[in-house]
């Protein structure tokens, strides 16, 4: 039984001019179907305007499909009575760290979700402590968010979602506004939560390096799922990715170019270690 079922979802933005007349309809998501199993780490890739963020907002019941349905842990997102339960089951982390922190100090922000859910005071404090510890931000609990770095702020945002005890977390380009250091921090926290706490992760991104740890990758283009598979499968299709205006990780690209130049390397090399191993093997064979 999967935790998230997206069935043939289509979402249309209706553009209106100043007199409220319909100017045109943009189909942001076009008949997408996918299912996510509990504990999976899913990555959704795509360049700007591919519909990946729009799709993500459907899982959290912020947007509702024009056609098709989204079912989260057995609840249809169109069912208004289940709204709060759905948002608690599938938490969401957004792109801009400044615009999603509500509290004036870190611990207040993490407590905001449980407060809304009506969790008793004592348990809120326990949840705040455990979630801040899970992302390694416990020492900063009494800081003002304005004094934290981008990566730290995003980790606080993740802690704020964890405090609601979700089964699934959707991360909508959480690293887009961060420096490389901050990006690494956030991805490390996401992977740890997926490994240790078995929280289902749906990571939306356009950084290839963040995708290699995912169990499955979906590549979106023009509102449709253009490719899907394990990172290895996806990244062995370098030319297809390029057509979709996506880069591959540097190491993968290097391996791809070497192979084209005649070095007998396997497809879909993702990490530096894999490449060195493969190259060593080739040299051994040569000798």
């Amino acid at each position, binding site marked *: 039984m999967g935790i998230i079922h997206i069935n043939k979802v289509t979402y249309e933005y209706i553009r209106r001019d100043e007199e409220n007349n319909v100017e045109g309809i943009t189909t942001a998501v076009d008949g997408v179907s996918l299912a996510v199993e509990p504990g999976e780490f899913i990555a959704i890739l795509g360049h700007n305007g591919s519909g990946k963020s729009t799709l993500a907002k459907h899982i959290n019941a912020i947007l509702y499909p024009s056609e098709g349905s989204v079912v989260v842990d057995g609840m249809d997102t169109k069912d208004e009575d289940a709204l709060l339960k759905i948002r608690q089951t599938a938490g969401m982390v957004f792109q801009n760290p*400044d*615009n999603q922190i509500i509290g004036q100090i870190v611990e207040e922000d993490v407590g905001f979700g449980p407060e809304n859910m009506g969790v008793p*005071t004592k348990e809120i404090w326990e949840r705040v402590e455990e979630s801040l510890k899970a992302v390694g931000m416990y020492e900063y609990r009494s800081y003002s968010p304005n004094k934290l770095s981008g990566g730290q702020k995003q980790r606080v945002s993740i802690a704020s979602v964890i405090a609601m005890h979700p089964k699934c977390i959707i991360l909508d380009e959480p690293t887009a506004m961060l420096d490389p250091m901050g990006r690494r921090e956030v991805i490390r926290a996401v992977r740890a939560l997926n490994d240790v706490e078995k929280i289902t992760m749906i990571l939306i991104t356009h950084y290839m390096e963040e995708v290699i740890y995912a169990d499955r990758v979906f590549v979106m283009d023009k509102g449709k799922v253009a490719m899907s598979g394990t990172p290895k499968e996806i990244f062995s299709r370098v030319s297809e990715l390029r057509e979709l205006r996506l880069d591959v990780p540097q190491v993968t690209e290097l391996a791809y170019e070497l192979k084209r130049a005649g070095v007998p390397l396997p497809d879909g090399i993702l990490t530096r270690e894999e490449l060195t191993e493969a190259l060593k093997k080739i040299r051994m064979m040569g000798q």
Partner: protein
Amino acid sequence: MLRDITIGQYYSADSVLHRLDPRTKLVGTLIYLVSLFLFATPLVYVPATLFLMIVIFSSKVPFGYMVKGLKPVLFLLLFTVLMNMIFVKGEVIATIWKIEITKEGLKQSLLMGARLILLILGSNVMTLTTTPTRLTNAMESVMRPLKLIRVPVHEIAMMMSIALRFIPILLDETDKIMKAQMARGADFESGNLVKKAKSLIPVLVPLFISAFRRANDLAMAMEARCYHGGEGRTQMKPLRYTGRDYAAYMILLLYLAGVIVTGKYSTEVLDWIGVR
């Protein structure tokens, strides 16, 4: 440059006053302010000043810091004093050019000045010893009865605390926009007041746009975290009265009684001391 502005003038220290429940301080300040207006006799300023002195002393906020709070209203203060001195009619004691200064006017202006100073210092004690968050919490709790007449108390408090959270962010943004425009030759420094104000329009427009965008994002983030108004909400830091607060309320009552007694029996008191 804009970053240095602090909003809410909290002075961090560890004193009895800092540890009081914010509701106690809010109600106490209100009572104090009202007590200043109860009687017109100058004698009530004796207990009022004494009380304030004791409170300021126990707050561990340096007195100089406290007095700094008077600066922004200095003009208003001088204006009130001068107006009272000039325009109150009565027994003339001095004439400067065409302006007559009367005994009653002098008395009145001194009284008004003292009242204003006590008023401002009194409310400063509260803002200096209470963090903005706790103050908004207290307001929400004190105003709760207004819910009966459909005042959206929780929403107002939430708006205030979000505004406080975003002030530094928006100041930062203003700074960025101004720098970006200065880099392209905008001039914010020269010219008269009107010209300076006009040069701020190109700063305000992008600032507003970005503020709306932020508001939109924030609303979405709040909804995503199950925010649905004040109903069924629990509090992480609920306000709780302790023995300290009951003691503070007792002291307040005593003070109020003292003021009423001195006010009501001012002539007798004056007779008793022998001044008159």
